[in-house]
């Protein structure tokens, strides 16, 4: 059989950002293996209605406390996830980890992460891990309005955060891509996470301002990370089989065919070869 479900105890329900629910779980069986990029498949056995496992990106791991924070993703129909209504002490059925860790070459020291309020859940763990490891991280956050912007307190102080809001209520008025040019040459590695419009815009902006692909050249010289693209897109997925067989999360572009729940969530976009694990 596939990965067996394990039981997790709900410690708390909170918010990752305004309107974005997060669950804090006690999950001793899986916690040690969780890495940035991983998600969990959650099911509350007692919940009524449709028994469907939902994909919840891991946003924080606290090995000392033994707790894992995951984000509940917004539903397409605008409905509130019933998991957010649970009270501490509830038991959840968990399958995971879903997906692969995000590969960042060891010689990529300067990292640019571009996200929006939808994509933040998929990068929080990554940004924290990179900053804690001593890498320089710049985070560009795009939102419609200031109320949607996650709190800076969720990230290490060493992370440089720039905010762009469509209505100008906080930071730069406009989109995150307006701010990319000043970091495009600086960044060894760029990671974008969010809605498809943002991912397309980042890809276009980076391609337009692209300098010689130094991370690929460096990686090749050192024999490291030869398959890692300079721009990686983190593509969200919400529901599905979680085992790669249903086709519900297959992401296709010109070079790769990635089952997000197995080979994702990172998809190579610019520079470097397509990830070998993504070929299907």
């Amino acid at each position, binding site marked *: 059989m596939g990965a067996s479900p394990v039981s997790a105890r709900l410690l708390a329900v909170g918010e990752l950002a305004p309107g974005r629910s997060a669950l804090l779980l006690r999950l001793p069986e899986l916690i040690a293996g969780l890495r940035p990029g991983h998600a969990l498949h959650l099911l509350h056995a007692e919940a009524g209605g*449709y028994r469907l496992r939902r994909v919840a990106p891991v946003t924080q791991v606290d090995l000392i406390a033994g707790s894992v924070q995951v984000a509940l993703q917004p539903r397409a129909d605008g409905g509130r996830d019933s998991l957010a209504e649970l009270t501490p002490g509830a038991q959840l059925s968990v399958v995971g980890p879903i997906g692969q860790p995000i590969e960042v070459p060891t010689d990529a020291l300067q990292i640019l992460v571009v996200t929006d309020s939808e994509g933040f859940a998929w990068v929080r763990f990554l940004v924290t891990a990179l900053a804690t490891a001593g890498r320089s991280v710049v985070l560009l956050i795009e939102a419609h309005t200031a109320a949607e912007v996650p709190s800076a307190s969720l990230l290490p102080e060493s992370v440089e955060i720039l905010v762009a809001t469509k209505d100008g209520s906080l930071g730069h008025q406009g989109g995150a891509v307006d701010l990319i040019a000043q970091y495009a040459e600086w960044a060894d590695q760029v990671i974008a996470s969010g809605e498809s419009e943002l991912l397309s815009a980042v890809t276009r902006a980076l391609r337009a301002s692209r300098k010689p692909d130094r991370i690929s050249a460096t990686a090749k010289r050192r024999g490291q990370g030869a398959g890692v693209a300079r721009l990686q897109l983190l593509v969200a997925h*919400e529901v599905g*089989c979680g085992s790669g067989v249903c086709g519900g999360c297959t992401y296709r572009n010109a070079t790769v065919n990635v089952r997000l729940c197995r080979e994702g969530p990172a998809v190579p976009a610019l520079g470097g070869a397509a990830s070998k694990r993504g070929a299907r």
Partner: protein
Amino acid sequence: MGERLAPGSVSSAVSLGGAHPLRLERPIVTASGTLGFGAEASELVDLRDVGLFVTRGVSLAARGGPGLPRVVEVPGGLLHAIGRENPGVDEVIDRHASAWRAAPCAVAVSLVATETKSLERLIARFESRADQVRADAYELDLTVPCDALNGARWERSLEEATRFIHAARASTELPLIVKVSPDAVSVRALGEAAADAGADLLSVSGSPIGFLPNRSRTGGALAEGLGELSGPLIRPRALAAIVEARGTLPIIGGGGIGSPADALDYFAAGAFAVSLGSALWADPALPRAVLESARRSAAARGLSQIGELAGLALGGAELRVRG
């Protein structure tokens, strides 16, 4: 009703169809699309509890799928558009035929074709590789778009659907399972036409069409726009379609079965076997639970076979169905 029996004495085997019967050791079917093409299926579900594994749809040539999102949750179910994405018949056989041969249950290949010529060539391709392929039946998916109907489903035209089934029957001696959804032009008329055209079973388990705008209402929630619905929200419609089609061909019923009790509803409405879909992702042990529940239910009624549960809710009389 006879005396209560021991559940262990109740037979789960059913033999369905006339001229080309399909024997299932257990009246449990895994729906096409749910567990992949074959190689991965036994990692997800114990196929020893299943009677029939139906592959994901296979076409003559490779078919690409739409962009993301392909699957979203809606109240009471899922809306999905995978586009019958598959690598084409030869690659599917190369990668999955060994799993079909090893499967501890019957295997049906779900056929995807948008016109009859490609259906004939697709079946011919399978039959030409019969030394490698163990298929116990073909599923003719009438919820696939039909070129002659400008992309509408085969099931939306009695005439086109009948041509499709005739073409398949002329191409193979294997049992044919005709798959329709509650959206069919007339499930009963299709069942009768399918029987006349030589089909052996009717699978009333296809997904009806659905649509949901995205949150900003600037487009569809799915990249494809329209999608197909699965989950409990379609259950009453699927049950009604089974009642409508009862008596035309032996029926496999499915749509939103998430518990043993749901499966008993399908037997009671007239199904001889039940098709399990996305609920398997949350509960891989569902086939075993359904099987045991059906055995207990039959035993409590003094029935020696699960197949005798079919149609109990109809009280021996056909419900009046208005078209």
